[in-house]
């Protein structure tokens, strides 16, 4: 398989393309390519939301208003109300912002050539740090300062085990920043790498056929059809993953808020 000899160089190219590079044209390289696409995602989200809630009627008349209201209801009922016992209406704006932000950034990354804004650790750690500060503030407000810190230990457990579990719970609460961020980042980043590798393999096998068209090169290009089918199947999986990762991020945020808002 001498066509595969160029594979390592192409994969290096792909990984370099998917890494965080400054965009030289804007202000001399102050933002990176991922932040550029996050900006595009924010602009698209603002326009969609502004158009979607313009003339609010009891029954939405345009498809866009219907879609925005359906997604908002999904966040309000299935995520906020089912994970937070009472007072879920207070936290609904934050949860809806997180959900729509992550969803739009994931979807923007699906278009060929563009990158998801959430595909870099900078954006995802910023999101998960915001979530961490938010649910700790909710915990401090609802249970008082010492009440919240003491609530990490389980009830009805004798003394030494109490303390050990308290340390483990506090540590895992800090670990939530990391796991929330890494889950979202790894799904977006690895998905793009896999799609890129399958695209590289498709083009490598078809290169002989592009250079000169003969019966031998056409047969040599037949594996490209297999790689293309696999890439299409993975593309559909990536669309599903975009929605599922937004849903899981928001759901976990709601779970952490619900746990912090009452007795742990």
């Amino acid at each position, binding site marked *: 398989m001498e066509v595969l000899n160029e594979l390592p160089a192409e994969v290096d190219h792909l990984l370099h393309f998917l*890494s965080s590079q400054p965009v030289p044209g804007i202000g001399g390289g102050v933002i990176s390519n991922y932040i550029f696409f996050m900006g595009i995602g924010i602009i698209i989200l603002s326009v969609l939301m502004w158009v979607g809630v313009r003339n609010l009627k009891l029954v939405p008349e345009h498809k866009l208003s219907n879609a925005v209201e359906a997604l908002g209801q999904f966040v309000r009922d299935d995520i906020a109300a089912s994970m937070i016992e009472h007072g879920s209406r207070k936290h609904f704006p934050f949860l809806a912002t997180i959900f729509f932000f992550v969803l739009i950034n994931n979807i923007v990354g699906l278009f060929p050539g563009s990158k998801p804004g959430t595909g870099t650790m900078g954006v995802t750690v910023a999101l998960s740090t915001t979530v961490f500060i938010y649910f700790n503030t909710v915990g401090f407000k609802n249970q008082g300062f010492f009440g919240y810190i003491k609530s990490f230990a389980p009830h009805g457990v004798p003394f030494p085990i109490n303390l050990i579990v308290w340390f483990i719970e506090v540590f895992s609460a800090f670990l939530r920043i990391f796991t929330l961020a*890494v*889950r979202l980042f*790894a799904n977006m980043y*690895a998905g793009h790498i896999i799609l890129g590798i399958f695209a590289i393999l498709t083009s490598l096998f078809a290169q002989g056929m592009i250079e000169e068209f003969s019966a031998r090169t056409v047969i040599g290009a037949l594996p490209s059809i297999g790689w293309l089918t696999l890439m299409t199947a993975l593309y559909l999986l990536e669309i599903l993953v975009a929605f599922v990762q937004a849903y899981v991020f928001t759901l976990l945020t709601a779970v952490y808020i619900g746990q912090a808002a009452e007795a742990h």
Partner: protein
Amino acid sequence: MEFIGFGLLYGLAVTAPAIAIGWVGSKATESTARQPEMAGRIFTVFILSAAFVEALALLGFVLGILVQGKL
């Protein structure tokens, strides 16, 4: 040599999540067959569990790329 390392890293990292997601998927199908009216709730829990476990497997993949210095 580093390719063997990367292959081992990812292979070991993804074995247990693969078994776990298959297991939870089979349990989800079985419980939907036992009580079809809970299908929505069961599907939600299945997707949630799969996303949790998948995060660990993908972290192994990203770490493999990271230790090669190409992140």
